């Protein structure tokens, strides 16, 4: 760069300036649909407002301090931790095992067609509209007419629980549905990650007498680390944002046992007409998501750096 004459430099700058035109539509759209609404939401969160045409009253950080004393708010974030268990931890572990078995075992010993058929089966719930999944699972869990309790009756359980209707079973039932929805995503990603791994690594390990589990631990897990981070990041964000499954399955109930932050903010917007309060919940949720995403990204960068140093 330093060798370039100012003239060339200016010409390059001018060439570059053209590209701002290409940026224009995207930036305008982003401003109108995301940046301005985001700003307005923060503005709303500083007010007491019933929404619509009713007057807005300045409340400062009042909504936020109110949140600190709101048991429902805290329990919604406690449930977020369970959502992370159901949407990140359990599916990633199961997906890792399924991908390794499909790729390393079924693919090699039974056939690639069987492996990709099974992969498609596991992925199916991922593409179905959550509303459909919710309707069907809601009925499966139904205490009187649902198929789960019909099944339990037929094997002799006299009083099966009212799955989504009682506070002690609703959260595990919702988590089960979420695990079912999520499994396909890590499985598909891990399977393609495994394709990237050099087969010679495995052959060398096999010659050294390493069994399946040793190879899995020493080769597979370190090699697919980048994908593991991507899955953790995207699924954690999805888990913190989860709304539709809660809406169709339980609407946060019974007794707030399945309440999540996004549903709580929706509830305040439209059922309780506390728009400012709902906006404050949404802002806090955004903050939590950004912090969590930044921490995961930081861990990833640090781990990548460590790996590079290790190679040297």
């Amino acid at each position, binding site marked *: 760069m330093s060798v370039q004459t100012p003239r060339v430099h200016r010409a390059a700058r001018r060439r570059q300036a053209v590209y701002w035109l290409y940026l224009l539509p*995207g930036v305008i759209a982003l401003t109108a649909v995301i940046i301005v609404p985001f700003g307005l939401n923060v503005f709303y969160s500083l007010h007491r407002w019933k929404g619509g045409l009713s007057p807005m009253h300045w409340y400062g950080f009042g909504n936020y301090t109110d949140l600190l004393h709101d048991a429902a708010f805290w329990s919604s974030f406690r449930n977020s931790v369970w959502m992370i268990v159901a949407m990140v931890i359990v599916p990633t572990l199961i997906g890792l095992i399924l991908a390794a078995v499909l790729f390393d075992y079924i693919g090699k010993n039974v056939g690639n067609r069987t492996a990709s058929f099974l992969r498609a089966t596991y992925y199916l719930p991922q593409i179905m509209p959550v509303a459909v999944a919710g309707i069907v699972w809601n*009925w499966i869990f139904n205490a009187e007419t649902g198929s789960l309790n019909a099944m339990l009756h037929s094997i002799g359980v006299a009083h099966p629980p009212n799955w989504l209707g009682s506070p002690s079973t609703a959260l595990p039932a919702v988590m089960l549905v979420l695990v079912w929805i999520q499994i396909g995503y890590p499985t598909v990603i891990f399977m393609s990650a495994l394709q990237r791994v050099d087969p010679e690594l495995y052959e060398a390990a096999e010659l050294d007498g390493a069994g399946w589990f040793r190879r899995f631990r020493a080769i597979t897990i370190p090699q697919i680390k980048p994908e593991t981070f991507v899955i953790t990041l995207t699924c954690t964000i999805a888990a913190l944002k989860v709304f539709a499954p809660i809406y169709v399955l339980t609407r946060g109930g019974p007794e707030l046992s399945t309440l999540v932050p996004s549903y709580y903010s929706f509830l305040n917007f439209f059922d309780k007409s506390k728009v400012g309060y709902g906006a404050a919940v949404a802002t806090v949720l955004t903050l939590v998501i950004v912090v969590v995403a930044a921490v995961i990204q930081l861990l990833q960068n640090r781990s990548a750096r460590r790996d590079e140093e290790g190679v040297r």
Partner: protein
Amino acid sequence: MTTLAQAPTEVAAPVKATRTGDRHHRGALRWVVLVGCAVIAVLMLAPFVLMLINAFKSPADYSTHGPLSLPTNLYFTGLTKFWTTVDFPVKLWNSIWTSAAVSVLGTGLSLLTAYAIGVGRVRGRAWLVAVFLLANMLPQEVLLYPLYTMAQKVGLNNSGWSIVIIFTVIQSAFGTYLLASVLGTFPKALLEAAALDGANSWRVLWRVVFPIVRPTLAVLMIFFFIWTWNEFFIPLVMLTTPASQTVPIALSSLQGDRLLDVPTLNAGALVSLLPTLLFFLFFQRTLTRGVTAGAVK
């Protein structure tokens, strides 16, 4: 799951086994692992199967034989009842045109922005990418109420266009992030050759860049289509009149209906799932490629 837990220990134990012995061992294990995977596949499919066998039962059949038996005879009234009560063709059309519009517009917008960032290397591109990524990460709740009031002000509430505009921007934020990293590694030689031939940036975009990234764009379009089709939260709030609603919203609005019988509900779920299912079967390969493209960055 038990078979999966067994697999490693059984294979790992006979480390010093002879080659033939090892292979023989695998012969039996093969079936155990396969059955294990098949059992999981059956569990994954079970809700779909239950939905299918209950969509064609009469309410009387359902109440006497329960949800687990096969239908005694095929009953299509549930299906037609759902079709007419929710005015299904209208919902289907709403879902199709909004999703198609978002997939085309969103991909186009992603391409333009990513071109400026990846090929144009505009200043501050790292920040731009971060802003687009952040925009895609935001929970929709934080945009919802302002967007709701804005749509009312410009008269786009209850219109599919509000969905098209909002999701074009939200999806293209992801598309920009993905495409910018693809275009950031675009072969320099091609661009320089085109510049020497005197092509301006617009020509370079359509004659050089576009043909090469077309497969990635196709994947993006398919994803934008499916994502928009499945969107629930913003359409639920924006589309309040039946004539404007999409398939998922129409289906969920049935849920609280006490008069509705279980077979009708299942028939509705089945019909609502069919378009997605056909789409999935048709684009299965592209979809898996796309999931991966999104992950590898």
